[in-house]
């Protein structure tokens, strides 16, 4: 099904709700006395959008707006995930002390706009649309990262983000223009056909390689993939905590979605048996598997030395991007399924870790490991146990969901017999445990110092942490629904 602009609107409810909601929040802020309730209003809007994405008018597979965006179960999966990330982020924001009195109208409005941009990133099937979506997400992220204007680190974060982002998107745009010059089309699927023709004539053409590498810069920057990762620790540290969580989870998931949607149809061809073959003469899977190994290793080794837990989680999220790329380079359905599965468990455990960190930051004003000292022994046992589970799940230990996610990624790699990648990832899991265990050690093995404040869990954050915890525990032991959902979501164009 291929719809023109006006007919498409009926199938575009989630995006319309978000766009309208974003404007409505600004107006509510201006003209009504409900400043304190804007967070709840924003959550309601996102909830409606998520509901519409799942149960609104839909088609099995179709193009909207003259092949600009796709409507398929792959997009729906990511809309769910991104919507839930936005919900959790807003929930966290309402309970964040950093953000108290910081222009909630603008904040939630921009957050919704950013989510809208991510929806487009997950569904774009055209280079131009992909660029617009990515740029839209970047612009909103710059503002959100620097939202605490009075904090020097916040300003630094926003500026760094802006400069890196500018360079990356410039490079990507140049890459896109080269691709257009080579093929004369912007559509991912058509691009795939035409590039195959080009590659057949000019195998190993450097121009093709350069175009792909440049295009990768923009997306790689979004998922914080080495060597486009340098912005992330500073931005993660300087941004308000809920935004850090949002960037680490939602932004990364949207980037992975775009990466798959672009690389699979455009730069490889489906073999029909659940595997793909890379474009002839362009060994991008080999290149990306090196990138994956370097990304996870750099992320993990750098995380080892961090004293600031926010930075530690930032580097760990770089490493997790590396793990997720494992599923990307194997060119198989099981790899993609593993990525989708991993994004779900990553959402649960990473947001959970950030939520507990926020509790500590709220009550101590500190973000370093020392702030966690003896947490279990000074009245913070529930928070400490929750953090323990989230961190060990991130480390990939059973019986938590993170292990299952990692097992699927490893399985995809082992199935394709990419042993080097498997063993590098295995070694990385051991390194990762060490730094997650440092936080755990501080919470449980160290004694609190006199004068360390008690960390109480308030209801709102407690409920959020409880839900994320339930997911992390349940999906560690019974993950059939998640894997079925991921399986059903592998339908996208060019597949």
């Amino acid at each position, binding site marked *: 099904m291929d719809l023109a602009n006006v007919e498409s609107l009926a199938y575009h409810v989630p995006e319309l709700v978000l766009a309208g909601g974003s404007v409505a929040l600004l107006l509510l802020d201006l003209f009504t006395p409900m400043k304190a309730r804007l967070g709840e209003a924003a959550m309601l809007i996102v909830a409606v959008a998520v509901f519409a994405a799942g149960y609104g008018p839909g088609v099995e597979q179709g193009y909207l707006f003259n092949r600009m965006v796709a409507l398929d179960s792959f997009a729906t999966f990511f809309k769910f995930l991104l919507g839930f990330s936005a919900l959790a982020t807003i929930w966290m924001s309402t309970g964040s002390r950093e953000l108290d009195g910081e222009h909630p109208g603008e904040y939630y409005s921009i957050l919704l706009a950013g989510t809208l941009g991510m929806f487009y990133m997950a569904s774009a099937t055209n280079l131009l649309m992909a660029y617009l979506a990515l740029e839209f997400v970047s612009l909103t992220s710059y503002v959100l990262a620097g939202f605490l204007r009075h904090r020097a680190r916040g300003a630094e974060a926003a500026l760094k983000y802006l400069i890196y982002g500018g360079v990356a998107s410039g490079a990507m745009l140049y890459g896109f223009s080269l691709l257009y010059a080579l093929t004369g089309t912007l559509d991912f699927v058509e691009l795939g056909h035409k590039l195959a023709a080009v590659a057949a004539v000019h195998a190993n053409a450097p121009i093709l390689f350069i175009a792909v590498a440049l295009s990768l810069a923009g997306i790689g920057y979004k998922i914080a993939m080495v060597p486009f990762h340098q912005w992330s620790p500073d931005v993660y540290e300087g941004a308000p905590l809920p935004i850090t969580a949002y960037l680490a989870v939602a932004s990364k998931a949207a980037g992975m979605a775009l990466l798959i949607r672009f690389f699979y149809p455009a730069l490889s061809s489906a073999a029909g048996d659940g595997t793909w073959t890379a474009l002839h003469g362009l060994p991008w899977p080999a290149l990306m598997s090196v990138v994956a190994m370097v990304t996870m290793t750099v992320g993990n080794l750098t995380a080892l030395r961090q004293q600031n837990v926010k930075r530690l989680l930032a580097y760990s999220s770089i490493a997790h991007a590396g793990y997720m790329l494992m599923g990307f380079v194997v060119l198989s359905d099981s790899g993609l399924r593993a990525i989708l599965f991993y994004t779900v468990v990553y959402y649960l455990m990473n947001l959970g870790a950030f939520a507990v960190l926020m509790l500590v930051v709220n009550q101590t004003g500190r973000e370093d490991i020392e702030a966690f000292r003896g947490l279990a022994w000074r009245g913070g046992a529930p928070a400490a146990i929750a953090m323990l589970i989230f961190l*060990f799940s991130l480390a990939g*230990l*059973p*019986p938590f969901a993170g*292990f299952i996610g990692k*097992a*699927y990624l*490893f*399985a995809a790699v*082992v*199935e394709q017999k990419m*042993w080097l990648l*498997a*063993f590098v990832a*295995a*070694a990385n*899991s*051991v390194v990762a*445990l*060490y730094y997650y*265990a440092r936080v755990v*050690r501080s919470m*449980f*093995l160290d004694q609190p110092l006199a004068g360390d404040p008690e960390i109480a869990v308030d209801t709102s954050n407690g409920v959020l942490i409880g839900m994320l915890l339930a997911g992390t525990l349940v999906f560690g032991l*019974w*993950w*059939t629904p998640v*894997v*079925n959902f991921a*399986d059903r979501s592998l339908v996208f164009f060019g597949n």
Partner: protein
Amino acid sequence: MEYLLTLMTFLPLLGALVVLALPRDNANLVRWTALASTIPGLLLGVWLFENFDRSVGTMQFVERHEWIPAFNVQYLMGVDGLSVSMLLLTVLLSPLCVLASWNIEKGVKGYFALFLLLETGMLGVFAALDFFLFYIFWELMLLPMYFLIGIWGGPRREYAAIKFFLYTLIGSVLMLVAMLALYFANTPHTFDLLVLMERAPTYARGFQAWAWIALFIGFAIKIPAFPFHTWLPDAHVEAPTAISVILAGVLLKMGTYGILRICYPIFPLATLQYAFWSLAALGCWNIVYGALCAMAQKDMKSLVAYSSISHMGYVMLGMATLTPQGMNGAVLQMFNHGTVTAMLFLLVGVIYDRAHHRNIDGFGGLASVMPVYTGFVTIAFFAALGLPGLSAFISEVLVLMGTWEYSKPVAIVAASAVVLTAGYMLWMLQRVWLGPVNEKYAALPDLSWREIVTLAPLAVIVVVLGVYPHAVLDLFGPTLVTLGNTVSSAVPAAAQAVLR
């Protein structure tokens, strides 16, 4: 008794949840509840011992349920002679360890909850017949162990805990990769160990070779085989007494159990190929090296820890021979080492509780101060050095008999090491318990009732198995014959001679 193994495995977990729900200020209630949670397991163990069919070497009490059909992961439990003996050891040691932990004062609830979780993990490892399930139980033990050492341990507990954790994890991730490779080596893909064993002849030689090594490293770290042993002295010395008992008594056995359960039947060809260097030679070196290190120790607990390395060497050696004597000796040694070392650690714990140090040179003449205690010490020490009439003698002799058939030079080296064992054991006995009484410790009280109750069952077992080893040997005889045949028949006899 359809759900026997499930009940056995998960009752302690239930106990852990109950313990967590108890009020914080009533420590005694927590202790009694923890003890009560380990008793049903013991009773089920006794029932299992009575009703286990000793005439066959196949899996019994099998429970099979679908778990995650999309990944073909099953909830598959079952026992043969090998696992039954290890399950019995675990359920036997668990209540004793709860008793030995009675004087834990800090975070009592947390301690016992973690301990019970650990018991579930251990029992699960021995009962699981699905590789994925096995792996989950295997990893499940890491968490409680990390905290039990890290929170309730000695002065260097944090270092010891993380070292233990990282070492084991290195082994685990290697195991994970090998496990997944094995999963994909079969169509339809499966983690079912029984199916994986049946398909053993179909695996390619190259695949067998590297997968065996990856799994072996994972298990060797647990045993611990030289050169992967360095976590053990740290973990043992820093861990609280009961946890040392569990570490030495049960956790080390998981290494050799894993090799026998997974490496042997699934990769028979690779087993034959590597058995000499990785098990026999390394085991022999473990025996000698562990004994020499033990001799140099100044701390009683680290002496016992190194003696474990030495004694586990006999298990490896016996396994490597693939002869009925050697294999039976190896598994019997696993059981006997479990009881004897448990006694040794408990005995060291007794003196540490009273004197607050464990220096071998800091005592003297304890025999006249604490006669009952010394009685138990004598039994345990003589069992450890392999005195005829006590349990460990039988297993060591069986191992050496098997080894003699297998390789005479190795047998000679291993047998000579018995002298070293006698050396360090008797030397410690002499310095601590004999000689003039150290006035500082002339007034130490003898064993309390609780301590006697903890030690006596083990002493009885050590003596009984020294006289009537068939009580345990009969359990796993047929199983090991089947296993030995599976491996030895993997290649024709002529090729075997070449390999050796």
